[in-house]
């Protein structure tokens, strides 16, 4: 009943822009509003046979696979220790898992370039100060993989955290009494039960890394490593822009992601992952014993690599009067440091306005996105609506389309729509909701799969209309997942760069654009670093919002 209207809504948000792109992929010219021609062709797909594309694709796959696995390991580890064990400083470790979200991957990459470049990287400079040769080269495949993993691990963390915090310990206890050691229990019960979350976040992360341009640009290109995102970027940046070919690449990616989504659906459909049942969910934490301290140390290592070191790098480049530093000793010279860049950064009208826009847009987009994702997740995994398969696929499509390409699709869509949203903040909000549909959907869907439907059905039998039952039983049970999803979408919206680039105007400029512009300027590294730090601070403060919601009283949860 609710399936079809919802499919229509999501389809409208997602399919119309995607439709433009498919059209572009098969057109000779870019089909813009006002000049939509039907000069169809398949020539655009020839680009896939372009020399070097295969090598680039190979590199991208290698990087994406390694980084996805690493991100899953990091995120899974943090999620497990915070949701299920008695690790020391639990709430701080939770923050550790979350915080890299505040650092957009391109800022993280730049920070790591500052830290780890083979020539002038701070780490190498430090080593040289100590009389050793600088051993670190971030401009390498391992370097790119590390940075990608560091900044995508929070996705895995957030999604798995909600899955793991809802697990019924009886299921694990059963493994314990049947001879499974802690590790084997985790491997054969805990992790498999979190499979929807693992596969879901793995799929997300893989595709996002595969398409990530910023990190490739900053870290891979200087090292002479070609990647597919750079290739798509080149296509889009060619003059005149080769949008049709980029769209063709996007169509191939969409096909791949649809296939992967279907495969994932098949894997998950065979089994059930219900962990919260009406026979009770007794909150119980695992004792780490001797591992308590090592686990904390591991989390701290991640914290240092993803947050502390990069922020210190940025801080140093924000307060250093000269971007060049021959040795750490030179910092003690008079006039080497000052903080004017911060003052410049935060006092400007433009900054204040952009910050305001960003916060407003992000909050609304995260809210809208969470609601939509919940509805879609619910319809797909709890109802027998005919449309549910289609709904899931459609929800995942934005993931497949590189943001640059999707941005154009959204631009076309909202230019031709006879509703006056273009040029306002609304168009950004709508765009963000569409772009982030996959992230929201996966986050919630995996949680829905883990609650026993009897719980909700019993409320219905006790006289509650379905919606009431959802709000009384299902939503509160999914509290952790819903608030994590909200947080995820909030952060993503704060960071979203490519889509607003096509949709913003001076009045609706967002912080991410302001910062990107500063970094893009070249030479404004000081101000850019300062602004980036302030930006991280804002995200940090914002992130308290959903955590307040999530941390409310309750018998179980984070």
């Amino acid at each position, binding site marked *: 009943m609710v399936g079809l209207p919802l499919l229509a809504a999501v389809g409208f948000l997602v399919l119309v822009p995607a439709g433009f792109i498919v059209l572009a992929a098969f057109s000779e010219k870019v089909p813009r509003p006002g000049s939509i021609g039907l000069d169809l062709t398949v020539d655009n797909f020839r680009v896939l046979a372009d020399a070097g594309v295969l090598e680039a694709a190979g590199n991208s796959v290698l990087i994406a696979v390694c980084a996805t696995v690493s991100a899953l390991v990091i995120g899974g580890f943090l999620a497990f220790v915070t949701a299920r064990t008695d690790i020391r400083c639990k709430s701080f470790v939770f923050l550790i898992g979350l915080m890299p979200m505040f650092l957009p991957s391109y800022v993280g990459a730049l920070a790591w370039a500052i830290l780890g470049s083979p020539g002038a990287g701070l780490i190498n400079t430090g080593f040289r100060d100590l009389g050793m040769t600088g051993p670190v080269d971030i401009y390498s495949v391992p370097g790119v993989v590390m940075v990608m993993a560091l900044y995508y691990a929070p996705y895995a963390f957030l999604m798995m955290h909600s899955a793991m915090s809802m697990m019924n310990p009886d299921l694990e206890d059963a493994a314990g009494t049947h001879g499974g050691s802690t590790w084997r229990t985790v491997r054969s019960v805990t992790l498999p039960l979190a499979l929807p979350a693992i596969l879901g976040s793995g799929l997300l992360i893989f595709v996002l890394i595969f398409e990530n341009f910023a990190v490739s640009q900053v870290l891979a290109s200087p090292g002479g490593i070609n990647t597919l995102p750079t290739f798509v970027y080149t296509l889009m940046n060619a003059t005149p822009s080769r949008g049709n070919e980029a769209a063709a690449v996007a169509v191939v990616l969409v096909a791949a992601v649809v296939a992967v989504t279907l495969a994932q659906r098949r894997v998950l459909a065979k089994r059930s992952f219900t962990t919260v049942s*009406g026979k009770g969910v007794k909150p119980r934490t695992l004792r780490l014993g001797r591992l308590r301290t090592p686990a904390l140390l591991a989390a701290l290592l991640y914290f240092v690599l993803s947050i502390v070191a990069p922020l210190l790098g940025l801080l140093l480049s924000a307060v250093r009067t000269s971007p060049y530093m021959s040795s750490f000793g030179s910092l003690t010279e008079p006039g080497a440091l000052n903080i004017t860049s911060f003052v410049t950064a935060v006092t400007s009208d433009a900054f204040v306005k952009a910050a305001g826009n960003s916060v407003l847009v992000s909050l609304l987009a995260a809210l809208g996105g969470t609601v939509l994702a919940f509805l879609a997740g619910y319809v797909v995994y709890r109802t027998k609506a005919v449309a549910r398969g289609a709904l899931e696929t459609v929800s995942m499509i934005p993931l497949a389309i590189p943001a640059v390409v999707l941005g154009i699709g959204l631009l076309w869509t909202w230019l031709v729509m006879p509703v006056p949203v273009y040029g306002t903040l609304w168009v950004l909000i709508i765009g963000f909701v569409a772009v982030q549909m996959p992230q929201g959907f996966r986050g919630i869907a995996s949680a829905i799969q883990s609650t026993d439907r009897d719980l909700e059905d019993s409320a219905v039998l*006790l006289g509650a209309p379905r919606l009431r039952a959802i709000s009384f039983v299902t939503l509160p049970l999914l509290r952790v997942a819903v608030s994590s999803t909200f947080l995820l979408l909030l952060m993503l919206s704060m960071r979203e760069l490519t889509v607003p680039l096509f949709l913003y105007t001076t009045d609706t400029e967002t912080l991410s654009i302001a910062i990107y512009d500063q970094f893009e300027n070249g030479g404004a590294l000081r101000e850019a670093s300062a602004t980036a730090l302030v930006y991280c601070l804002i995200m940090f403060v914002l992130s308290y919002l959903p955590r307040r919601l999530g941390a409310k009283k309750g018998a179980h949860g984070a």
Partner: protein
Amino acid sequence: MKVDVRGLELAYGDFVAIRNLDLTIEDGESVVLLGQSGCGKSSTMRCIAGLETPTRGTISIGDTTVFDARHGRAVPAYRRNVGMVFQSYAVWPHKTVLENVEFPLRMQGVAKGDRRRRSLEVLDTVGLAHLADRGASMLSGGQMQRVALARSMAMSPSVLLLDEPLSNLDARLREDLRVELRRIQVEQGLTSMYVTHDQQEALALADRIAVMQDGRITQLGTPEEIYKRPASASIAAFLGVTNVFEAKRGTSERLAELVGHGLSLHTAHDIPSRSASVCIRPEDVRVDLVDTAGPAPAADGSENSFAGTVDVAVFQGSSIRCKVTTDGGLGLEAVCAPPVTGRLDHGARVTVSVAPGNVMVLPETVPEPAVTAVAA
């Protein structure tokens, strides 16, 4: 309200869990659903409650047709006013005990104070008033089950479905709640359907018993009817009649020849010409120690009486359940009072006897009805 189920069919994917099920529960009646594990009891309840969408058939509650596959009609679950105690309890782990029980009253718009009072009353009935403010996931298994029960009782539904609501409770509590349930049911004229594996419970609660086998109802009758005249040998076996033997008509119409034993039993019932089974309730098998001075078995020709040896005897409180193998090789199970002198132990020599009236003659299974033209 009267519940009427016609031609019900439910499939989980390819697996057909309920096939062509007909069942009527009269207004105010309590029907107990008996059947072996996996035969489709919970599924039937879920259909009546509106939680599953059957593939065929109609369901009506009172005068309303709440489901009709042919006309695509399906009243949503929350408007059926059907209460259900789930086999999986479905207690909400994130709420307190009281919040769980108050919920249906809140849905009915009962004012706060009143709601609390009534909920506490019900909780008191199930013996949990002192845990009202405890989180519902911090309870023992039996306590959770009682919360689930209380929640449905608080709702005052027009039809109450109970899926093994007392399975985790101790005998005494169970008996108390059983009496309480029966009282409420009779007092409020509540139509109810009950799944239990406990025969005592079935007998105590049922106006009628519906025996379910393989997704359909094979016998429906009062407890005494079902107990005294099971419709088939498989039903008899299910009801605890352990002595079931394949038989054919012997030299007389009332002499059953046990297939594979070379033994015959006198019976007071007619034996059909096609194959049948004879069933003897363990309570109807009399066991006497051979060296006892008890009254000898009646020696008239119609009495079945065999010498045998005790294989195993289990003390059951007020009675003893023992397995005896007759010298002719027939294994018989018997439940009898402890002998006044001597002990019924492994190896003891005994005489077993069964009155012909207690030798039941039944078909193997209840024949599948020709599929009625429901789909037509």
